[in-house]
């Protein structure tokens, strides 16, 4: 088992998204990988600066949609052709056009549920406790401040060295994040 570092990480606070993106880019260039940025709204450039390139989510949603389509059509087919074949107005038991609306709806339903549950699962939410909230000023991350946190589990992390590195990025403040 890996020894738990004494602190969760070091966090720098910025008041402008430009500064944060520049800082994240510098940190990435310096070789830090186990870090995260926290912003009150999505900043597209951040993902690129931090080297985040892709997510599995679209693939999962596609799979959810396919499963939904199969489930919807399967339900209509099995009930109307196999389990309880019923002649309705002389239509074939497998009435393809009539089964499309239900198939379409279940496709959308399963895909949307996958998108939402997948998003929460991959993001690890709900999460009742997270160390970053131990920084008192972090409450501003949902309002008007921008934070960069380099985590202690990063191989390059060194309490003194990393703090000096963050201070060179001219943040408003650098604070230690307790576990």
């Amino acid at each position: 088992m890996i020894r738990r570092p004494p602190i969760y990480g070091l966090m720098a606070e910025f008041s402008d998204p430009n500064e944060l993106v520049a800082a994240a880019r510098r940190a990435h260039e310096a070789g830090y990988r186990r870090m995260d940025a926290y912003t009150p709204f999505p900043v597209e450039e951040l993902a690129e600066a931090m080297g985040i390139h892709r997510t599995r989510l679209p693939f999962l949603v596609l799979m959810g949609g396919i499963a939904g389509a199969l489930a919807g059509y399967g339900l209509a087919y099995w009930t109307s052709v196999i389990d309880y074949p019923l002649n309705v107005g002389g239509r074939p038991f497998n009435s393809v056009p009539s089964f499309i609306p239900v198939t379409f709806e279940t496709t959308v339903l399963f895909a949307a549920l996958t998108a939402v549950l997948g998003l929460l699962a991959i993001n690890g939410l709900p999460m009742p406790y997270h160390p970053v909230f131990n920084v008192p000023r972090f409450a501003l991350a949902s309002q008007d401040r921008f934070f960069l946190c380099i985590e202690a589990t990063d191989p390059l992390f060194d309490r003194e060295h990393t703090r000096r590195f963050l201070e060179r990025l001219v943040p408003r403040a650098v604070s230690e994040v307790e576990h």
Partner: protein
Amino acid sequence: MVEPVETAAEQAPLIEPGHTFRSVTDKISAVVLAGKTPRGWLVGFGVSFALAMVLLTSVSYLLMRGTGIWGVNIPVGWGFAIINFVWWIGIGHAGTLISAILLLLRQEWRTSINRFAEAMTLFAVACAGLYPIIHMGRPWLAYWLVPYPNTMGVWPNFRSPLVWDVFAVSTYATVSLLFWFIGLIPDLATLRDRSPSRIGRAVYGILAMGWRGSARHWYRYETAYLLLAGLSTPLVVSVHTIVSFDFAVSIIPGWHATIFPPYFVAGAIYAGFAMVMMIAIPLRRFYGLEDFLTMRHLDNMARVMLATGLFVAYGYMMETFTAWYSANTYEQFMMHNRFAGPYAPVYWSLILCNVVVPQLLWFARVRAHVTALFIISVIVSIGMWLERFIIVVTSLHRDFLPSSWGMYYPTMWDWSTYIGTMGLFLALLFLFVRFLPMISIFEMRTLLPEAEVTEEPA
């Protein structure tokens, strides 16, 4: 060549200048976090709640006595219940249009209105969903609509539009709720971090699920949000298409028409935008949100109303043309009966409300006049209700055989149920405005000039 003239409303900004991340956050969350509830809110909520109790009374009496308390009978078996179902669900569609389609089309002005329009969708779908259930006669058996293995050994008939409806409306309600909730999470985190009360912090904290605004989370969030928008767009079209199939798949004159799906979808958006306008205008006045809900928004909504109103007018025209061109006696009689039959005053009021009055929206001066917009929206909402009345009642009351003709008159209980759902809708809307941010705070932040990343190292 004619130079296009920019009207004042077109030049108006989406957010009045001078706002910062902090001021946007303060202004919108203050409505929710204010310790004191405004008196106007209490009065409004009280009246709406009283009307919701009228609904409760009406439904209770209905459960005691059965659908005989309504004016429905043979030949008109689909009275207010179906008219109101279609009307409410149509209203809901504007919310999805604003949140999904305008997002995909990168219409940034949607940001100020999408949150409460989505809430409006949910509440309208709740009112809509009630009607088919209470119309069943034995509503306690409503679960028979759902395909579940049962001791009777039967299944729903998947060839029936009424079963499609069950799937469409329940999927629509679920997906709208998910879309709305996902959009709320970052704002719930803001409220959690700002709430002065312990209870507020706890409740918003639980709902925000530990959202911390991580860049990785935002990246997936944006992907998921876009995917949901992409899924909701065909969904909203499918829902009203399927609602129109309830009519179009039958062989009743006036219902059996291929124009029904597009004409219903356009009508839904038309009615929905009218409702968004009717909600937005009082809200921005009462809560002083003119900085975020600017004249530009009202102007854009008025244009959407005008455009969809023209689609609907085209629908009326083609219905008439098709009836004439079909050379079918019954179709022609149906149209003649609409123009000059016993419900002719309703038909001509509908034309006045939906086709004539909205032409005023061509004028920029009308679109810049808040009171005029409000009145036109009310008229359009009435017009769209009359349209559903005409579709449901005139086709049923005189079909193929004169021996089976009859008249439909709503009773007091029809009206009280209808007014009651308006109470329910408004009461839910009042609660929403008081307890959740009615404008998406995080999306408003992205519209500010300071949110722009120019990549210049600071």
